[in-house]
């Protein structure tokens, strides 16, 4: 865990005071809605269909048990008893009253939390691998650098009014769980000649013009991280388009002037500032490292008797096979907590569930919790010998659905139920899909499939990079959905291909089912995953069958 010190606390308190003053001026009529809008957005406050929505930053998806309790408190005290975890590793509360916002924020600040830079045209919360510092795959904890970026980007005076919002993601593992190639900047930690540094990828993004990002530098030594980022942002701030909101993201600038010219501008700017005040050194990086408290890992070995005995319980064994991953420390494991039970909105958690997860984290997982961009939670450090007891407790809270990575582990945006921009609903569709695919044997047989739903072209549900992507469109005042196949968000990121004409709402679940039946029939063996089969076969066989029955 990163421990905030007095600098961070002072800053947050000052920020809460500032916002309280701004809300007061809005309520007094001194600020009109247009003037208030960018100010509230800077604090994570959106105006949605029914109410103000508060988005809270969970920097790089890491939460302490106390912070989780603070979220539970806000859900209970200021909202309707639940919150919604998002694909940006944040949480949203959908029903907060403007007058109560400053109090909710003060309560959060006491736990070191805030809504800063979760909206507005600034550098947003940096996201990373939910398995950071736990997976054996990575070379270093990427959160160190995410924290360095957080500090540098917090209320950056030069980059608070960019052409458009700006998202940075970072990973240190081979297997990219942070979708770095579809962010404005993606950073991949790797090592060259014994030095740690980054591959720098720019101009990825989804939305109405999706792009996979381009690598503009294969290797950037870690000491140069901030100066290089500043050079990219300055290049974007000066040259990004401001005439059309749909063309204002950095991906359009990179596309229009070309990767080569963009890179040239960045490198030229960087040459001027690389040895300046932003240059990092080992002492600065180590000072940040010292703020991350390493859990007091018990010395344990893999496969304890308690675990082996528990595996004879078939329900536990199923969950274990599905939701538990290897840890870098012997005798430990990474546990993913599914927020996708059958029939519920993806990513929602009740205040009671949040409190329960906080308690379980304290008992079994060194008090640490992560939010995964798949809208699930993770306990990154669990003792293997405690897995069975943990599972029982999670199950009692409805938090042990063994569907991680399977068809019912759906990523969905809020859609028409909450969002003012939506064409179509996302949540009810996700709920219907989970009901159709409730049979655990069946979904385990189908295996790994990522299904993503967005209620409109803004792509908050990442539909372009879902193995199956579903996009809400409007047709003759009715909700229709476009379906894409073959998208991927990982290190081989790829955008999905359109299957065919849009499908009316009552047909979507059937079409998805026929696509999956086709896969099961045509796969060479169970080892060939859905996405591999789509790559081998192309979309034609799926298309034929998907529309055949209509």
């Amino acid at each position, binding site marked *: 865990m990163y421990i905030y010190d007095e*600098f961070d606390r*002072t800053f947050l308190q*000052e920020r809460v005071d500032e916002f309280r003053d701004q809300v007061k001026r809005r309520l007094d009529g001194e600020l009109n809605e247009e003037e208030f809008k960018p100010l509230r957005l800077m604090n994570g406050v959106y105006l949605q269909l029914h109410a103000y929505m508060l988005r809270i930053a969970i920097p790089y998806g890491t939460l302490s048990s106390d912070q989780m309790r603070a979220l539970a408190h806000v859900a209970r005290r200021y909202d309707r008893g639940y919150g919604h975890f998002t694909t940006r590793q944040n949480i949203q509360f959908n029903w907060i009253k403007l007058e109560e916002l400053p109090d909710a924020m003060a309560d959060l600040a006491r736990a070191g939390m805030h809504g800063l830079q979760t909206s507005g045209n600034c550098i947003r919360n940096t996201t990373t691998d939910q398995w950071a510092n736990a997976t054996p795959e990575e070379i270093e904890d990427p959160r160190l650098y995410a924290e360095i970026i957080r500090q540098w980007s917090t209320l*950056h005076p030069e980059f608070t009014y960019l052409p458009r919002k700006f998202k940075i993601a970072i990973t240190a593992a081979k297997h990219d769980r942070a979708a770095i190639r579809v962010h404005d900047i993606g950073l991949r930690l790797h090592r060259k000649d014994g030095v740690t540094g980054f591959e720098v990828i720019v101009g990825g993004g989804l939305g109405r013009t999706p792009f996979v990002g381009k690598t503009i530098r294969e290797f950037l030594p870690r000491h140069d991280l901030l100066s290089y980022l500043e050079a990219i942002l300055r290049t974007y701030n000066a040259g990004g388009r401001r005439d059309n909101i749909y063309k204002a993201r950095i991906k359009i600038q990179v596309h229009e002037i070309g990767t080569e010219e963009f890179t040239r501008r960045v490198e030229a700017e960087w040459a001027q500032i690389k040895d300046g005040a932003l240059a990092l050194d080992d002492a600065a990086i180590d000072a940040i490292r010292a703020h991350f408290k390493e859990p007091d890992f018990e010395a344990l070995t893999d496969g304890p008797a308690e675990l082996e005995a528990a595996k004879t319980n078939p329900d536990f064994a199923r969950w274990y096979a599905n939701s538990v991953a290897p840890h870098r420390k012997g005798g430990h494991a990474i546990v993913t907590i599914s927020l996708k039970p059958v029939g519920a909105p993806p990513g929602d958690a009740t205040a009671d569930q949040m409190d329960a997860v906080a308690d379980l984290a304290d008992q079994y997982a060194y008090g640490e919790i992560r939010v995964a961009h798949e809208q699930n939670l993770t306990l990154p450090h669990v003792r293997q010998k405690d897995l069975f007891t943990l599972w029982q407790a999670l199950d009692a809270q409805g938090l042990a659905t063994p569907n991680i990575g399977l068809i019912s582990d759906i990523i969905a945006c809020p859609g028409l139920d909450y969002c003012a921009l939506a064409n179509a609903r996302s949540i009810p569709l996700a709920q219907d899909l989970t009901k159709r695919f409730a049979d655990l044997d069946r979904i385990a047989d189908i295996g790994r499939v990522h299904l993503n739903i967005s209620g409109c072209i803004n792509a908050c549900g990442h539909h372009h990079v879902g193995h199956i992507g579903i996009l809400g469109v409007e047709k003759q005042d009715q909700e229709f959905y476009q379906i894409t196949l073959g998208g991927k968000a990982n290190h081989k990121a790829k955008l999905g291909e359109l299957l065919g004409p849009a499908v009316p709402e009552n047909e979507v679940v059937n079409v998805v089912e026929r696509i999956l039946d086709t896969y099961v029939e045509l796969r060479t063996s169970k080892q060939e995953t859905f996405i591999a089969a789509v790559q081998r076969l192309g979309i034609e066989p799926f298309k034929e069958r998907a529309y055949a029955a209509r």
Partner: protein
Amino acid sequence: MPLVKNGKPVADAFVAVADEDTLPDAPVLVSATRLLAEGEALFARNHPVGVIWPNDKDVLLLEPFVDRLAVVALIFPKFRDGRAYSQARLLRERLGFKGELRATGNVLRDQFLLMVRCGFDALEIVKEGDVAAVEKEIHSYSVFYQPTGDGRPVPLRARLAAARGA
């Protein structure tokens, strides 16, 4: 519009002059076009010269004049258009401009601090009521995370200094 410099309301001694007009016998603010066209002739006069520089023009073009310009006025056409923040830092930190750096356009209180941190020392304020808020706004934070040309220590370094001192 009220002008506040270094936190205090001041009278504006400069007259903005249109390109086709003859120069008055006073300190002037000319357009970028006029500065680049007439350059030396402007500085040969006995009055201070300032320039109004658009936010889509490279400020590094001002290099030949930085030591002689009394004022550079940068423009925020809308407060949401943040290009002049980068221009300000480049002028101060890259070109070492020491004269008055004036924020003009849609200059509102909630951006005062950002402007000051980027190197502006003069604010041409839109709303009369915001003038009194300058002092409060620019002192609303005591902690800053990133170094800009204003030379304040940031937590990353201050923590280290504290650790070394201890």
